[in-house]
């Protein structure tokens, strides 16, 4: 994040991450579809794993400051960071390909949503939490293809627009 435009773009994506978290669709309690992963993934795509990881951590905290609901439990931040990092690893510096999108999102679903979050949930809510694990698995697997498709469309558009938005006028503000 040497360059100011990158810093600011990452900041705006962070804001978007927080905003999108507010527009989640509740299917059942515990089962919520949120779209903030899109902003996090685009951050990873444009600025790489480190930035995505830090921004995900910041997003977790800010998200709680902005829409305080439920429990603030610090380990959830680790999940967010891990996911951000995965997106960065798979999507950074490469033209968007479906295979990469599939790989990144699937890993996030399995490791972050299913493994890590289940662990944290069980810490907060007691071991009974394993009772609804099957429902969570089904939900995540059903949603996976949709989420992948959405991610693919958004990433493609974002990559294109980002390039045109900043290259178009040829004025990338000069670093003094």
């Amino acid at each position, binding site marked *: 994040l040497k360059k100011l435009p990158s810093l600011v773009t990452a900041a705006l994506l962070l804001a978007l991450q927080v905003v999108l978290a507010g527009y989640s669709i509740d299917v059942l309690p515990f089962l919520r579809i949120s779209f903030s992963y899109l902003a996090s993934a685009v951050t990873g795509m444009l600025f790489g794993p480190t930035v995505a990881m830090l921004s995900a951590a910041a997003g977790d905290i800010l998200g709680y400051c902005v829409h305080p609901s439920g429990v603030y439990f610090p380990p959830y931040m680790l999940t967010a960071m891990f996911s951000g990092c995965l997106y960065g690893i798979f999507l950074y510096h490469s033209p968007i390909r479906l295979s990469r999108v599939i790989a990144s999102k699937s890993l996030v679903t399995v490791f972050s949503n299913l493994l890590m979050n289940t662990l944290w949930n069980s810490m907060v809510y007691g071991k009974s939490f394993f009772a609804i694990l099957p429902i969570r698995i089904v939900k995540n697997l059903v949603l996976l293809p949709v989420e992948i498709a959405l991610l693919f469309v958004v990433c493609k*558009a974002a990559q*294109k*627009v980002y390039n*045109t*938005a900043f290259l*178009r006028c040829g004025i990338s503000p000069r670093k003094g």
Partner: protein
Amino acid sequence: MTPILEAQNLCYTYGTGTPFEKKAVQNVNFKIQQGEFIGVIGHTGSGKSTMIQMMNGLIRPTSGRVLLAGKDIWEEPKKIRAVRFRVGMVFQYPEDQLFEETVMQDISFGPRNMGLTDAEIEKRARDAAKFVGLQDELLDKSPFELSGGEKRRVAIAGVIAMDPDVLVLDEPTAGLDPAGRDVLLSEIVSYHEERGNTIMLVSHSMEDVARVADRVMVMNSSHLQMFDTTQAVFSQDKELESIGLQVPQITKIMSILKADGYPVHTCLTLEEAMEQLLPLLPR
């Protein structure tokens, strides 16, 4: 004749029951006939945005009714989408809503949502593009590569392509330069003349409203303060100024001359003023 659009005791209150409760629109009544060109003026915060968003059911009135061709638009809430196709709405800075890969696809978004056939969609999109003066070679480009003025036209075409009976435009010329403003406005006027449908134009530019509108609505602190012919509204320059609105410069000049006892009457455009003044002036 049944008015195309009618408001009956329209009210809207934001945040009912919270400390932030705010009456945005109160007791608005009006009738608009098919084919009229209506100007809507008023300050930011006067309630005009809320009012126009009730016309196509984006905001549901807290009380009162909106009648489209004599029928309450909320009679069957499930069919509200059909109302939105008949009352097209162009928001402020509409270029922000573009999202498709090509201009053509973006203009087609509305017609496609209407469930039309591909051929019909294509035809409508091309017609709409023509109305706003978009060249054919732009249609296959990405909307994000266009200039600001072109994007604005694409967005307006996207609403025109739904072929609405009533077209509501919220400051369509905001942020354009004077030349761009004039061109866009005359495109809207010729669209109106050709299709003969009803237009509601919200604008801060009194000159523009005076030039194009048949009748003018004046919104002030959530009420419909005046609704009369353009001539009649702008001849009340004192009343308008008292609520902080200006009349067009030309109207103001003529009304000062009139007040000072010269034999002229209210004018809306330069041409009218020239016509009146020339015989009265030495050459």
